[in-house]
């Protein structure tokens, strides 16, 4: 046997880093990495130098100072004596509220429109097409401003509800009053209110916990019931009728709780300048929510349409051939397959909606952008800190949404053996 030594492995020379193909790619990557790092360190260094040249320091102390301003809509108690930090938390909660409600309603709108656009009814399908094209192709900010203008100019002022012959009357049996500031809706009251668990300045009513527990129990019960029905079907071939048991499980305990606590609606009443007693849904919130819903809904509709169309026609025909009815075909055959196509782009739409909610400032809705990135930034002059903090919070929010939706996606995606 002959062993070759050295012929295949010439001694390493420095020029091989550039001229030898085996090393060249590594060299290039190392150089690009160093350049990127240089760039980043220059940016950070430049920022710090410029800040210190202006005599500004980088500190988050301002978060613990008195905020001094009021916020129209608050989910947890807040007043002007609280800190900027609490104001920022109020902002985050407002962002979350409009994002979550927006995602839910946009999904409902999107699924409905997406399916209806495939309808065989020419008129409905065309109307849905018009809706999708109109909302998809005009910037969201314009929609927000248009809807705000409609709410401000068209709705009556609270004053219009006053007097013997008011210019405006409340709708739905005198319970809801739309105005150009807010929509006054009834609030819930209890004649036998139970105690509340106090959590600092916020409290959770036992009644709320009772309702949550009862509904959760009904949901689990319903699952067991369906499992039992499936077993019976597997053994005997006949599925027992269960819908009335499910219905009773959900309705009866809730009715009992409503009677027990004496739950009732308190209608809004015009008192002084504004409606009181009920809940006033701020127009800023309603406008933003509506605009986000309609805008994102148009995109989701297209995703849903694409998803349904992606399921081969043969699947539906096969299901029909087995004797499945259209509703069952949709829920058992088409939708589970369509979801695999729908969910990944849907995640992007949820993220878009969450980020787009920062346009709230256009209507004066005090979300994170309005509190931390708006008034706090302006009153304290801490542009850098506020921006860094705000970007971090939005990043975190979107990563959480993305992670949650990806878990859902892995549950619906195609299982391969």
């Amino acid at each position, binding site marked *: 046997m002959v062993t070759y030594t050295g012929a295949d492995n010439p001694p390493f020379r420095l020029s091989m880093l550039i001229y030898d193909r085996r090393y060249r790619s590594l060299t290039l990557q190392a150089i690009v990495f160093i350049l990127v790092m240089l760039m980043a360190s220059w940016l950070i260094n430049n920022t710090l130098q410029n800040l210190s040249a202006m005599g500004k320091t980088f500190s988050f102390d301002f978060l613990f100072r008195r905020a001094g301003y009021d*916020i129209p809509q608050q989910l947890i108690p807040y007043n002007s004596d609280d800190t900027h930090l609490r104001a920022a938390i109020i902002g985050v909660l407002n962002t979350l509220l409009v994002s979550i409600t927006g995602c839910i309603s946009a999904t409902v709108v999107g699924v409905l429109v997406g399916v209806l656009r495939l309808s065989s009814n020419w008129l409905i399908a065309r109307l849905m097409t018009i809706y999708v094209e109109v909302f998809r192709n005009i910037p969201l900010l314009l929609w927000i401003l248009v809807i705000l203008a409609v709410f401000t100019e068209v709705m009556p002022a609270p004053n219009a509800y006053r007097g013997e012959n008011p210019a405006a009357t409340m709708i739905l049996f005198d319970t809801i009053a739309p105005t150009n500031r807010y929509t006054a809706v009834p609030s819930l009251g209890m004649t036998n209110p139970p105690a509340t668990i106090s959590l600092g300045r916020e409290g959770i009513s036992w009644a709320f916990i009772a309702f949550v527990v009862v509904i959760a129990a009904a949901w689990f019960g319903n699952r067991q019931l369906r499992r039992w029905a499936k077993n019976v079907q597997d053994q005997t071939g006949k599925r027992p009728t269960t819908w009335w048991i499910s219905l009773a499980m959900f309705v009866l305990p809730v009715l009992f709780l409503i009677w027990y606590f004496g739950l009732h609606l308190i209608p809004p009443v015009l008192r002084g300048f504004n409606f009181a007693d009920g809940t*006033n849904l701020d127009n800023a919130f309603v406008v933003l929510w509506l605009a986000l819903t309609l805008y994102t809904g148009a995109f989701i509709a297209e995703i849903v349409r694409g998803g349904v169309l992606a399921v081969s026609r043969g699947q539906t025909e096969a299901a029909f051939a087995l004797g499945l009815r259209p509703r069952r075909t949709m829920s058992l055959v088409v939708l589970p397959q369509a979801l695999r196509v729908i969910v990944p782009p849907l995640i992007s739409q949820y993220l878009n909606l969450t980020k787009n909610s920062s346009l709230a400032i256009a209507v004066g809705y005090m979300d994170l952008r309005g509190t931390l990135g708006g008034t706090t930034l302006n009153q304290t002059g801490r542009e850098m800190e506020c921006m860094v903090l705000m970007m971090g919070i939005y990043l975190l929010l979107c990563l959480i949404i993305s992670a949650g939706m990806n878990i859902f996606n892995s549950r619906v995606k195609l299982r391969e053996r």
Partner: protein
Amino acid sequence: MKKSVFFGSVTAVALAASGALAAEGDTLKEVKARDVLNCGVNTGLIGFAAPDANGNWSGFDVAFCKAMAAAVLGDATKVKYVPTTGQTRFTALSSGEVDLLARNSTWTFQRDTDLKLDFIGVNYFDGQGFMVRKDLGVSSAKELNGATICIQTGTTTELNLADFFKANGMDYQPVNIDSNAEGEQQYMAGACDAYTTDASGLAATRASFADPENHIILPEIISKEPLGPAVRHGDNNWGDIARWTLYALIAAEEYGVTSANIDELAKSSQNPEVQRLLGTTDDMGKMIGLDAEWAKRAIKAGGNYGEIFAATIGEQTPIGLARGLNAQWTQGGLMYAMPFR
């Protein structure tokens, strides 16, 4: 060959880095080199700063921009007006987007210290008030319990409003708006019961209504709002130029120097202080990096303080503000120019 490309790009990055670090400004030099003054103004407040149909800006704050441009560049028209909102104004100034902020901004401790601004003086002594419709039947701000109030976010008025209602044990519902135009629209549509901002701003806003007689400004003034132009902290010479331009306008009124008689007085005035002001004797302009006639040009641009006041917001204008606190100290007001000496 390839080697040189790599090293070339590394060198380029290093050069760019060092170049950017060296850019630490001398505002006067920058303005002169640019030959135009970037002046931050309101996005539109009739009387103070508003563009007309042809895009020409005019108003009380705009007049100061013009006086500065005349003093520094020798031409009152060499101004680029940068509209700023309550939220963007200080960032625009500290980031260097504008050289000077002439935008009814209140001089406060925190802005002067923590925000690193230098207020160079007060050109209008103001206070926060409320405007309501006459048919609302309210005659005092103390009757506004439970009212919805339009407020521009990011302003001192927002903080005063919160404090006023808290101190009086009253509730209110804020409607946050971004600019005066938006506030006007919301108020006119009845989306808020009252609109609050500085009393001068209220008068200016009311003047632009079709039916000013149906709106009243409530008697309570709930704060002190000394409004004045501001510059960046740290460039003391630029601050001095701005400060003494303002004093030149105020002093000119005190000494009876007007845009009409200024040329004649420059030649014939026997008053030593007027002579120094107009650069006839003692070249004071040199001390701040300008020529001898800087103050003369500034006064000529739009007249002295009193002339500017009368032409833009005074009682003969639709805004109709009385001199009040803003009269000369010799007339019982607070306008007081430091001596030109």
